[in-house]
């Protein structure tokens, strides 16, 4: 259950809207089903009262929307940001992607968001509703007579289980208490893969990446991917669409995608959240983050505005490319 309830958010949104401080509100609205909560722009009080959603399914990170929304709007936009979203917000500001003056940020604490895939795996398909309780969710489905009690921990998204920070690094106003940077085990899985033999690693990634259908959702959602023209849309790039063979061609796409955001990826986890094929894209991003931390010193993208990303920086004493594998014996 989220600490701050929906009414508090709605009250703030409506009062800011009515006082003229903001001209629109970026929030969540219910999609086709209760669990597919989608980002939406609200400008009307009644619409907000009826349709504004805030629950355990509000995974979407709004930071990226600010790039296009601030361009399209003259007035200020109110945006609700969870702690991890504020890192993306700062990173976008660092890259001068939108005008800070046009945004009013309300930070909201987050207790973790549900991974619908995990929920379905547990209670089955045909989800009808889910009610947040103290310990978890009370879920009704088409195929069970009784509502099922689900432990929230068992259905949290991976990125929430390994949450790196509950601290808002940017806001104009904060609802609830200031959070803390968390101790997370987010690099454990990367280390586990590193410890495999090259053949095992290759097989692992082939298994994961060859499921990719090249919908480009991971690119589209990523707050670090905001170029107006993208290499993946270039018809002569050789990586513009899905390889028409049952092979592992999509690896090129994935290496380029992950490299493009290396040093700028805040590990917000949006890419893995939106992937319809459940490809663990965070394991590619985190490999870069882990390496950057190890080679060039700890760096968290988006922690503060204006910091220099590791790939546009250098040190005279940086390690040589040939030393990268020193001390790693898996061969």
């Amino acid at each position, binding site marked *: 259950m989220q600490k701050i309830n929906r009414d508090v958010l709605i009250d703030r949104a409506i009062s800011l809207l009515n006082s003229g401080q903001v001209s629109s509100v970026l929030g969540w609205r219910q999609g086709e089903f209760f669990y597919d909560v989608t980002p939406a722009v609200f400008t009307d009080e009644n619409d907000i009262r009826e349709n504004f959603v805030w629950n355990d399914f509000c995974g979407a990170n709004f930071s990226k929307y600010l790039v296009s929304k601030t361009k399209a709007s003259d007035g200020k936009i109110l945006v609700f940001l969870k702690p991890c979203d504020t890192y993306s917000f700062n990173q976008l500001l660092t890259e001068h992607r939108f005008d800070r003056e046009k945004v009013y940020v309300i930070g909201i604490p987050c207790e973790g968001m549900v991974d619908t895939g995990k929920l379905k795996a547990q209670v089955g398909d045909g989800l009808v509703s889910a009610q947040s309780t103290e310990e978890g969710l009370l879920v009704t489905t088409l195929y069970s007579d009784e509502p099922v009690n689900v432990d929230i921990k068992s259905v949290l998204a991976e990125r929430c289980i390994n949450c790196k920070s509950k601290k808002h690094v940017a806001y104009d106003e904060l609802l609830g208490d200031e959070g803390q940077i968390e101790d997370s085990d987010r690099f454990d899985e990367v280390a586990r893969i590193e410890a495999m033999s090259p053949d095992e690693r290759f097989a692992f990634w082939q298994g994961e990446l060859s499921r990719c259908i090249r919908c480009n959702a991971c690119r589209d959602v990523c707050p670090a991917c905001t170029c107006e023209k993208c290499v993946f849309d270039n018809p002569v790039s050789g990586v513009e669409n899905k390889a028409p063979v049952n092979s592992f061609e999509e690896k090129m796409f994935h290496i380029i995608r992950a490299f493009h955001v290396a040093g700028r990826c805040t590990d917000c986890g949006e890419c893995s959240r939106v992937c319809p094929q459940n490809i663990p894209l965070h394991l590619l991003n985190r490999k870069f983050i882990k390496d950057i931390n190890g080679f060039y010193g700890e760096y968290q993208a988006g922690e503060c505005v204006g910091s220099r990303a*590791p790939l546009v920086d250098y040190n005279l004493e940086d390690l040589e490319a040939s030393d990268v594998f020193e001390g790693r014996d898996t061969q």
Partner: protein
Amino acid sequence: MQVNKYRPLIVAFCCNWCSYAGADLAGNNRLNYPADVKIIRVPCSCRVNPSFVLRAFQRGADGVIICGCHPGDCHYTSGNYYTRRRMALLFSMLDYLGIERERTRLEWVSAAEGAKFAATMNDFAEQVAALGENKRLEDLRCKR
């Protein structure tokens, strides 16, 4: 006589100011290095976008080597420092995906180091030849 003996295809990105001149010197001094090495001249090693390396593999290279001026000697002062970071991360990522780490290399070769250029290429070509064809990074879309 052995026909059809496997020859690796090696792409060497060489910066104009040092390594390419180093290759020239190797030639002038009649130092041998394998003809399997195809040199692509770039203005500076940091011109090499990591996707160039991937593109080379995609189009059938068996090994890719990037050569630039020694740290401190880059014609543009700092280009090779950026190259060093990029390639360190790229090589590490390729390894993470299970691609043979011997297929990539970054080497500093000055204009005076014709001998080092030839020795590096001989060594790298041998190393890549030992691995055989690049299967893990090939891309059927790009094969003719």
